[in-house]
């Protein structure tokens, strides 16, 4: 009798077991980049792919809706701003545990820690610590009160304007009442970090056996150059802006474009970006074309104009160059991936960006281009065929194809000679913002945070990225251009808090750099062209970073 009971129990157990295992875990497999993730340590990462991986397992004070870019709470449930607009007091959501994947049991387990203001404070300071040498350390250092000296190693941590008022209250004082302060405070390098692990394991705290995280997923497996496997964090309660994950497992496969397409077509991958070389085939294929989607991506491709080089030092010539580029043709016949022609550097989805449709230019206007060219030729006393300029780009297929098209356009419309100079990437980036930059040079830019200042001021204000100055403040490298009105305007717009006013200011700034002084030629805004299996429910992120916790597998 006993034996029978035992047997029955055993059978019941087996049955139960099989019932459980019949409910297959939902696995979402994506190719979110061809190369291995460089790092998931928030203080050390830099590129979009690494930010994507870090966002899955960590998170910042606030977040934005991936489609609308609306600012939403994340770790900070609520926050208050002081009257002068410089001091934020963040109230951290209680009950978000640090979890880890236990390799022995194969389950996600809670640790003894919860996310507190101390973890955020630690992350801010670690990122800005000069010894960490974080590539993003300067962002906080430039904005947070007293942080610059700490970041330069001339003052200790006590000077930094961040205070832990209690375990769930964090106060951050900024230099200026800028609208984007809160975005900087929430950027990837300021995600909460587990101080106890970093102190114990050093750089190895991100190894699976040591790692603790708190976001919608946690990391289960990382086989370098092959895959990264995330599992759902069942203890993540969800915050105002980040929901718990809908799928049980999320797999990033790292595959070259062709290998990735083979995996997609074999049915092993649910989402992949399509390379330009595959677009025609995908659109012609009855199955693939139904799974094809094209959506906006908040990046802009543009050409820098060297305002102190031969020929391009003349503003009329620069106008002729910009107004003779047919952007519609470029996106239709050259890039072919659903990009949108651009009239401005800012992407329309950024906070305080001008309305692109209302901008009169720069557009393709051959008559105006010709007129400007004639003015230039008259002023200089030369003929069009005497003009030879160099267009430089970093060698990749897309950049070369666009450059060849533009070369032809300038030849046809203006009758000038254009030399193309394709350079190996690192060589190109090393010469780009120096006096050696060619007359025309290509660059593409995606924002780190979604505010207009990130693009336009960081790129073109004198002394910034594409407009370097020497010790005396004179133009040195990049576009080599100075306009006091522009500099004052973008500085004022950065500190301005009224959004309507900011839009006006950025509209004016775009007019200066695009139509009046013409220091750059906007080409197009990027797009995501991707294939998604029909059984995937997904969102379309405008930034380069997807919110995979909102994706679902419905089979």
């Amino acid at each position: 009798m006993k034996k029978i009971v035992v047997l029955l129990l055993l059978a019941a157990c087996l049955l139960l077991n099989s019932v459980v295992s019949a409910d297959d875990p939902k696995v979402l497999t994506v190719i979110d980049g061809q190369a291995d993730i460089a790092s998931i340590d928030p203080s050390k990462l830099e590129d979009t792919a690494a930010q994507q991986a870090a966002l899955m397992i960590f998170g910042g004070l606030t977040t934005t809706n991936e489609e609308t870019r609306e600012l939403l709470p994340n770790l900070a449930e609520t926050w208050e701003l002081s009257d002068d607009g410089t001091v934020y007091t963040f109230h951290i959501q209680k009950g978000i545990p640090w979890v880890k994947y236990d390799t022995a049991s194969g389950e996600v387990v809670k640790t003894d820690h919860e996310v507190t203001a101390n973890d955020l404070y630690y992350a801010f300071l670690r990122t800005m610590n000069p010894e960490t040498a974080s590539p993003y350390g300067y962002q906080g250092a430039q904005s947070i009160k007293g942080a610059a000296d700490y970041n330069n190693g001339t003052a200790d941590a006590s000077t930094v304007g961040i205070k832990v008022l209690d375990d769930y209250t964090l106060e951050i004082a900024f230099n200026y009442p800028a609208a984007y302060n809160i975005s900087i405070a929430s950027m990837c390098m300021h995600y909460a970090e587990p101080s106890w692990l970093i102190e114990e394991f050093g750089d190895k705290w991100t190894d699976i056996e040591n790692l603790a995280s708190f976001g919608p997923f946690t990391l289960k497996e990382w086989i370098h150059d092959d895959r990264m496997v995330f599992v759902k964090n069942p203890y993540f309660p969800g915050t105002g802006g980040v929901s718990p994950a809908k799928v049980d497992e999320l797999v990033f496969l790292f595959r070259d474009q062709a290998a990735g397409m083979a995996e997609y077509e074999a049915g092993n991958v649910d989402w992949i970006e399509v390379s330009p070389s595959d677009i025609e085939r995908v659109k012609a294929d009855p199955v693939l074309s139904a799974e094809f989607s094209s959506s906006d991506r908040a990046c802009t491709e543009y050409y820098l104009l060297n305002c102190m080089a031969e020929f391009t030092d003349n503003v009329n010539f620069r106008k002729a160059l910009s107004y003779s580029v047919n952007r519609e043709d470029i996106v239709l016949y050259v890039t072919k991936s659903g990009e949108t022609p651009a009239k401005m550097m800012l992407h329309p989805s950024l906070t305080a960006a001008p309305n692109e449709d209302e901008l009169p230019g720069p557009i393709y206007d051959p008559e105006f281009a010709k007129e400007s060219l004639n003015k230039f030729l008259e002023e200089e006393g030369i003929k069009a065929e005497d003009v030879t300029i160099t267009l430089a780009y970093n060698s990749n297929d897309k950049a070369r194809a666009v450059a060849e098209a533009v070369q032809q356009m300038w030849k046809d419309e203006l009758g000038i000679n254009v030399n193309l100079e394709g350079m190996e990437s690192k060589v190109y980036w090393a010469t780009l913002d120096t006096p050696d930059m060619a007359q025309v040079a290509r660059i593409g830019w995606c924002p780190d945070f979604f505010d207009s200042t990130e693009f336009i001021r960081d790129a073109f204000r004198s002394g910034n990225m594409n407009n370097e100055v020497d010790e005396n403040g004179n133009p040195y490298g990049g576009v080599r251009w100075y306009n006091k009105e522009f500099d004052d305007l973008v500085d004022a717009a950065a500190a301005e808090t009224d959004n309507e006013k900011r839009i006006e200011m950025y509209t004016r700034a775009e007019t200066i750099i695009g139509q009046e002084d013409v220091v750059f030629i906007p080409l197009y805004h990027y797009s995501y062209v991707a294939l998604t299996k029909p059984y995937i429910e997904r969102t379309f992120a405008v930034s380069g970073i997807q919110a995979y916790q909102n994706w679902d597998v419905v089979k």
Partner: protein
Amino acid sequence: MFIIFFCVALITFILMHAVPGGPFDSDKNLPKETIEKMEAKYHLNDPLPKQFFDYLSDIFIPEFSSEPPSGLVEDDALVEFKIGNTYVSWLNFGPSYSQRTRSVNGIFKDNLPVSIQLGVLAFIIAVMIGFVSGIIAALHQNSFLDYVSMSIAIIGVSVPVIISGPVLIWIFGVEKKILPPTGWSTARPFKFFFLPADWSWSGFWQYTILPSFALGIGSAAQIARLLRASMLQVMREDYVRTARSKGATERTVILKHVLKNSLIPVLTIFGPLFATLITGTFVTETVFGIPGMGKYFVNSINNRDYPVILGTILLYAMLLVLCNIIVDLLYAAIDPRIRYD
């Protein structure tokens, strides 16, 4: 051997620093102070000779310390042990600049075993196919069989993996779905540094068929052509005629006299071939999505990831030297005229 290493390291070091562009140049022109901080962290602001000798001493001179290893990627040594109260760490190939939480040693540990697995299998396939078709072609010179196997050899040499790989993937992975299109065994950790943890069909073998065949066939063609030419030459030698005339069977003549004596030129290419195959092949690994070493040879240069460039080159140099020594020893085994005293 140390002199070879020193020269290889020195030449590589000079070349990589002579190329314009540095590890932290990117489309995002970071503030100068930020780049200076990163350069200071990796000691790139030291004079070049100092950087070079620091690099060599980190690798070759064991470090003794009373403190346990720090856990920083900069201090990750390949050999770490403890004698009494002293911690010894040795063979530190430095950190990776582009993957900031990995060291070159970490890359060796994670990726080299995969390349060795693929390389050994491809080598076995190359030798098997190469020998069989080479011998057949030589024995039936100018016959139909000769033409067939030599045509296959020519196709093998002239169709690179970048063409044959996607075709194989398409047929067997996407259309027929018999084999996984890309990837490699994900079972970890490796046994004895490089053996797979899981020997099952679904855990290991199914991934190996396409890439090792695609990679091996090119080398097989090389071996076949070389062996054929060498055998044809040996078959005309006097001692082969002597062997035949003394009444030895054809089998004995071919295996004992002809084949053994034709092996020398084939063995010569075995050394570099084996070293190349097991240190990873960029194209095969990229086409088949295999997480091996191959891409680090190329990408480290694109990224100006100096320690990874030096590490991969030194590794390749070491294996090349080792393989050539083994080949030299094998010469002595098959050719009695070669003796090392």
